């Protein structure tokens, strides 16, 4: 780990642009934030402003070809992306990427993209609007293992640049950076600690997680909750750790030849037909069971053991897309009061 001090972040962007495509979160006139490609430096990263969509699409594409069939044999269609950088990714989203890295460890399509990506994380020095990252150990400070470079804004408009991997050290080579004094790291810790204190009281989430794992919650509770779920897939689409997909075949015919492509695309375990078999046997035809499974996938002890953390990274996107129904805050509150 190396720590540097930088007056002007443009220099780092400029430097990274030489060898990477650069993506950054940009806010539009309506206050909506989204990942956009930048061809030149100049946009300062936005503090604690979570983009509406997470970064998962960069690695686990919303839809992509898995193979093509030419009538004789099947061929892999691995993506070959140019090196790219996600500049200013926030800690919850980076934690989700680490989670997905484990889940898709052996998936060649995910890894083909992931290996070409440099992650530049950005500390949140104040709580965002809906998030609760401290409760699930996913922020607000960027975790060392989850990024290649960490940016920390200092009060005097300067930036702390912390490289946390070989890839990160390699990426800043050739850039004139001054080594920072270690006491700035202590200062960073203090600021992040204060930020954690500034989050609203989220103990109801911890309590609900315990209750969820106690096995005490009755099926009827989930059924009541599920009455309000439209099965729209909003939450599963936006959730940075959701990874279910489906497959389909597409035939492309031209005069000379016919090519068949098999694609995968994001699916949702909350859809009624997600598990429906050809015989119409459907083990999760009950909407309550589907909602229960979703929340167990995020907070169940069995998954914690496998991934060494919860499946939820505390970004609050599900609440934003489904206010008052089956978003995180609503569900956790109802588990405490009604279950």
């Amino acid at each position, binding site marked *: 780990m190396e720590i540097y001090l930088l007056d002007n972040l443009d220099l780092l962007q400029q430097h990274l642009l030489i060898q990477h495509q650069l993506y950054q979160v940009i806010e539009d006139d309506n206050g909506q934030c989204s990942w956009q490609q930048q061809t030149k430096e100049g946009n300062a990263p936005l503090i604690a402003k979570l983009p509406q969509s997470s970064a998962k699409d960069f690695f686990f594409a919303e839809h992509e070809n898995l*193979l093509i*069939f030419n009538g004789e044999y099947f061929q892999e269609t691995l993506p070959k992306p140019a090196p790219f950088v996600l500049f200013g990714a926030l800690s919850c989203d980076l934690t989700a990427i680490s989670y997905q890295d484990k889940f898709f460890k052996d998936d060649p399509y995910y890894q083909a993209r992931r290996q070409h990506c440099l992650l530049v994380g950005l500390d949140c020095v104040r709580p965002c609007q809906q998030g609760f990252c401290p409760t699930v150990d996913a922020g607000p400070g960027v975790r060392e293992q989850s990024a290649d470079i960490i940016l920390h804004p200092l009060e005097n408009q300067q930036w702390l640049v912390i490289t946390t991997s070989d890839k990160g050290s390699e990426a800043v080579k050739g850039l004139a950076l001054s080594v920072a004094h270690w006491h700035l790291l202590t200062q960073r810790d203090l600021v992040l600690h204060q930020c954690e204190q500034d989050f609203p009281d989220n103990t109801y989430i911890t309590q609900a997680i315990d209750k969820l794992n106690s096995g005490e919650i009755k099926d009827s509770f989930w059924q009541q909750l599920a009455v309000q779920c439209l099965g729209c897939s909003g939450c599963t689409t936006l959730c940075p750790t959701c990874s279910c997909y489906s497959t389909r075949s597409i035939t492309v015919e031209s005069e000379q030849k016919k090519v068949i492509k098999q694609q995968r695309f994001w699916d949702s375990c909350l859809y009624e037909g997600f598990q*429906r078999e050809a015989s119409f046997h459907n083990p999760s035809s009950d909407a309550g069971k589907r909602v229960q499974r979703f929340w*167990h996938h995020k907070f169940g002890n*069995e998954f914690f053991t496998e991934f060494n953390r919860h499946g939820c990274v505390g970004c609050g996107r599900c609440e934003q897309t489904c206010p008052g129904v089956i978003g995180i805050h609503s569900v956790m509150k109802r588990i405490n009061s009604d279950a």
Partner: protein
Amino acid sequence: MLNHTPDAIELVDYIDDGEKARHYQFRLRNITSQATTYDWQSAQPGQFFMLNVPSIGEAAFTFTEPPNEQGEFRALIRQMGKLTHTLFTLPKGEILGARGPFGHGWPLEEIIGKNIIIIAGGCGLAPLVNLINGLIDNLADDQRVVLVYGAQSKRAQLLSPERERWQAHIKIYNTLNEIKDQYTLAENESQGTPLDIIDTAMSAFTKPPATALLCGPEIMMYRAAKQLVNKGMTNDAIFLAIERRMHCAVGLCGHCYLHEHYVCKKGPTFSWQELQSLV
């Protein structure tokens, strides 16, 4: 790293069996530019493969005969939805794809040389064919194998020639849900479901079965498992093959979940001990 790409196979032959079911014979094609990607020879009884019908997609089927050295293998396939309907229209010689073998099959160490009760319903007999053939080839003198096979009707029964052949070596009880008025039941047939005949089948053993193997509709399997426990079998001696919708077979797409497990990887065979807490 995983591979999502099937090996090319040829549809060699098929024969009809029962109502809307066929035995398919396939052969791996070794096109020089693309040698086979998978370890086909390692297939164990109860494991499955993903059949790719280009332009339609993929679906899971068990081997009734695993790939031999010539790369030939068989499956018994029921006509169900889009993929299987299309398959049933395809001529011999058609090029398709296959990935596999996948999953955990039957627990051979609990089976070889032991007394076994097998309970199968409908197409659930398919994943057991390869196993039963193997058991019969190596049957020990004092080993007893009993099969209970349930079908909807006489017409819906599958694998008649096989069952005829097995009959000489193992005890078979056939159950039929519906029978036509004039129909006289054969000696080894009765009206009802496998559940109705389990007690009788258990009494065919002088030494109780060490292991039970179940495959068929889920409710039938759960009830049968409970009945066997009542008859004195232990939860860890009963094994069930679970069917779930599958799209990837490698634990990624999520479709086959059963609580925290993915049936494609952890199953399709589970012990009743493992399953009880999951269903």
